[in-house]
């Protein structure tokens, strides 16, 4: 339960070793680079833009090649592929692949250019198909489209607007050129947009006829072919077929590269790592013969670095404690159980410098509240078992995901426990099934009590758990202030509030209002009542006088104090917020009962059983999903808003070491056991 102690580690070594040292540091992945920004004479930064970009470009090309492979030679991947994590590859194999990078790059280029060829062929096919489309109306024509006619007679091909008929064409020509009668019009094809005509007339009258037709919207086709349309169409289709064959052939060729997929993934990661390395290299101050690396490392990781670098290279390693003004990156260290909720903390913000890491304390409350909100033994068992199986089946799952899975597993166990306490097993499935199918109602008794029968009781408990949660938060605030030596702040902000709140609670307990909620009258001995009043008054007066202690002006000071006492409303709303423990718990149980009831409506017999099973599976899956989401969101909220609101600020920077930041494979190091 702690934030790891960080140190600054600086390595000064010979320039000739720089790549080897950087690679070593990268493979260890325990140092976050943070160069000392000193512009000293004789030290320069190298410009590594060029090589870095070329590596990035190559990594990109590999990505492209892999995506081509995925399109034409898809890999079967299971639904759970995203859980599998990166594949483990040992260093030797990695180096072997990296050595063969020339060959792999040519494969990459080949794949990319093959892909381009396919794209070009597809574009060509599209063009040809368009041509066929424009030929389609002319298919009935049995002469070539650019056929000019005989010595005396000429042929005019063209389109006219949609409604054109033979009569209307003859009419048009007769009207415009009454003396021409040697004309023969055929409508080859017509659709709602256009009529397709061939017109024969005497050669000497050709222009006059065409002009007459033009006045009615006649236009020559945009594409003329020297072949009979149907023949042309066949030719085009043959060409398309050829192109399709070609595409198929290329696809086959691409499929032939599928065996290189794994190597391509490795080489992609290799290029990515190299690009990262050059990026860091560009930030290092270098003199003529030496260079300096500086960065943050966890104190306990430092000896390993000293050993690995110091023993194999000529260098000076300097380890120093952090300066006051430095804000180091944060690594959390927790036991296996509590570490599982680190992701939740991370999504709020890591502790800033000198702040207490609340992960451990939070983890207990988290699991406790989560279980209470879902509170169904069967649901809990399903979640816990599912997470457990997934964790076992995919041991190489990405670390963050594995932590969340673990968290849900613990939450599932907690849900199960609460479910047993409240007597919830898929809601009331035992009662319903036994009553409908066996004719005798059997009830699994709740170990504690059934919330629906006694909601006020659970409400009181929910609020009580809330008070405990909030008090722990306030306690942590006090602890932090004591640790920083702020005794005055501790007394004023924490002790006085505790006195005030505890006094108020003790005053509330024996009242009639509380009795009507809890349904039991609590009677305190008189001295306790006195103490309660005294505590509350001391707290209130203390807060009134002390809260505004930073202010010199006495009036302002009292006003600030009064305002701070007004914060009691904040406490009230915080405590009431815990009523969601009851509400969400009831929601799960009641909806589960509704599902069971609906399932039981099919009655007895085979149909009844089938109907029940169907409704049961669908209904409970939905209920589980939506309430799991609800429990997750609202447990987070209770931690973030109510609990953290009392003491926690966050805002720490996560530790981002210079490491082998790969996408597909993890490299197994032989040197590090």
């Amino acid at each position, binding site marked *: 339960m702690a934030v790891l102690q960080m140190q600054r580690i600086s390595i000064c070594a010979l320039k000739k070793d720089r790549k080897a040292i950087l690679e070593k540091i990268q493979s260890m992945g325990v140092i976050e680079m943070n160069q000392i920004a000193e512009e000293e004479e004789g030290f320069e930064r190298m410009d590594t833009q060029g090589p870095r970009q070329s590596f990035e470009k190559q990594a990109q090309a590999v990505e492209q090649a892999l995506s081509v492979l995925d399109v034409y030679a898809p890999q079967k991947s299971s639904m759970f592929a995203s859980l599998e994590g990166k594949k483990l590859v040992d260093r030797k194999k990695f180096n072997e692949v990296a050595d063969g990078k020339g060959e792999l790059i040519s494969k990459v280029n080949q794949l990319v250019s093959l892909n381009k060829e396919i794209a070009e062929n597809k574009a060509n096919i599209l063009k040809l198909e368009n041509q066929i489309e424009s030929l389609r109306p002319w298919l009935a024509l049995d002469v070539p489209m650019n056929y000019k006619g005989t010595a005396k007679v000429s042929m005019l091909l063209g389109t006219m607007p949609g409604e054109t008929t033979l009569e209307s064409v003859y009419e048009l020509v007769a009207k415009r050129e009454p003396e021409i009668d040697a004309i023969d019009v055929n409508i080859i094809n017509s659709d709602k947009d256009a009529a397709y005509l061939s017109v024969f007339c005497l050669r000497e009258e050709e222009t006059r006829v065409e002009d007459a037709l033009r006045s009615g919207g006649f236009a020559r086709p945009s594409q003329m072919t020297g072949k009979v349309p149907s023949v042309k169409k066949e030719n085009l289709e043959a060409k398309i077929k050829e192109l399709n064959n070609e595409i198929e052939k290329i696809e086959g060729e691409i499929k032939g590269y599928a065996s290189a997929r794994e190597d391509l993934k490795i080489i992609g990661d290799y290029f990515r790592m190299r690009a990262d390395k050059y990026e860091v290299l560009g930030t290092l101050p270098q003199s003529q013969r030496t260079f300096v690396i500086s960065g943050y490392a966890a104190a306990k990781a430092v000896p390993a670095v000293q050993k690995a670098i110091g023993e194999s290279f000529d260098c000076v390693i300097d380890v120093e404690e952090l300066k006051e003004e430095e804000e180091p990156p944060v690594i959390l260290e927790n036991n296996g159980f509590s570490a599982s909720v680190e992701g939740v903390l991370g*999504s709020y913000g890591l502790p800033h410098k000198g702040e207490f890491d609340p992960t451990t304390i939070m983890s207990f409350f988290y699991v406790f509240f989560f279980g209470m909100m879902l509170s169904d033994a069967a649901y809990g068992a399903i979640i816990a078992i599912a997470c457990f199986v997934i964790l076992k089946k995919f041991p190489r799952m990405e670390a963050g995901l594995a932590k969340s899975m673990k968290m849900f597993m613990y939450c599932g166990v907690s849900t199960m426990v609460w479910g047993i306490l409240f007597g919830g097993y898929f809601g009331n499935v035992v009662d319903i099934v036994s009553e409908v199918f066996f004719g005798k109602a059997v009830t699994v008794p709740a170990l504690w009590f059934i919330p629906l029968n006694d*909601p006020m009781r659970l409400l009181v408990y929910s609020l009580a758990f809330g008070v405990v949660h909030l008090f722990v938060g306030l306690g942590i605030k006090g602890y932090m202030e004591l640790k920083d030596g702020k005794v005055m702040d501790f007394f004023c902000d924490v002790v006085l509030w505790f006195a005030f709140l505890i006094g108020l609670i003790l005053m509330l307990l024996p009242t009639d209002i509380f009795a009507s909620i809890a349904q039991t009258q609590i009677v305190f001995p008189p001295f306790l009542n006195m103490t309660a009043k005294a505590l509350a008054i001391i707290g209130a007066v203390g807060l009134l006088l002390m809260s505004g202690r930073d202010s010199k002006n006495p009036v302002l000071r009292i006003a600030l104090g009064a305002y701070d006492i007004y914060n009691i409303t904040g406490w009230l709303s915080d405590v*009431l917020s815990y*009523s969601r423990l009851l*509400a969400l718990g009831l929601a799960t149980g009641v909806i589960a009962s509704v599902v069971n009831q609906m399932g039981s409506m099919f009655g007895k017999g085979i149909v009844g059983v089938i109907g029940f099973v169907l409704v049961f599976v669908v209904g409970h899956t939905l209920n589980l999903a*939506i309430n799991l989401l609800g429990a997750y969101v*609202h447990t*987070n*909220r209770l931690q973030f808003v109510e609990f953290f609101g009392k003491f926690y600020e966050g805002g720490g920077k996560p530790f981002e070491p210079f490491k082998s930041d790969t996408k597909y494979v993890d490299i197994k190091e032989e040197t590090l056991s």
Partner: protein
Amino acid sequence: MSIWSNLGLVYALLGAAVAVFLAGAGSAIGVGIAGQAAAGVVTEDPSKFAKVLIMQLLPGTQGIYGLLVGFITLSKVGLLGGGAAALDPQTGLLILAACMPIGIVGLISGKYQGMTSAASIGIVAKKPDQFGKAMLFPAMVETYAILALLISILAVNAVQI
């Protein structure tokens, strides 16, 4: 005996109906608003589907709370499993009143939670790593639906039949 004295059960059923349909409508509006935003994000980046789907579901709870109160009401007056209790109008109206909080708050908070969800989906679209924080904003709105649910449940339970 006038017809008015027979309406107790009708009032109670009206209460269940109010809880279910107002809160359900609120959720439908909210999920609808959030769904439009979610669909927009998925067109740009299908890999965010799971995250935005969760966001879209957040305003869906009001409808469930409404269902919950409706169900408790039905079982309270004995309409489930036959043998409806004979209610006098006063008790019926009491139950109707008890159902009001979740109905009305569910309707309004559902809509606004949907709008907040849509905005949070915007966060997820631009900064997927801020998912945890983005999820909290809609959850804030839901608090009031939970408080209303609580009062409705307690009130329905407290009515003596």
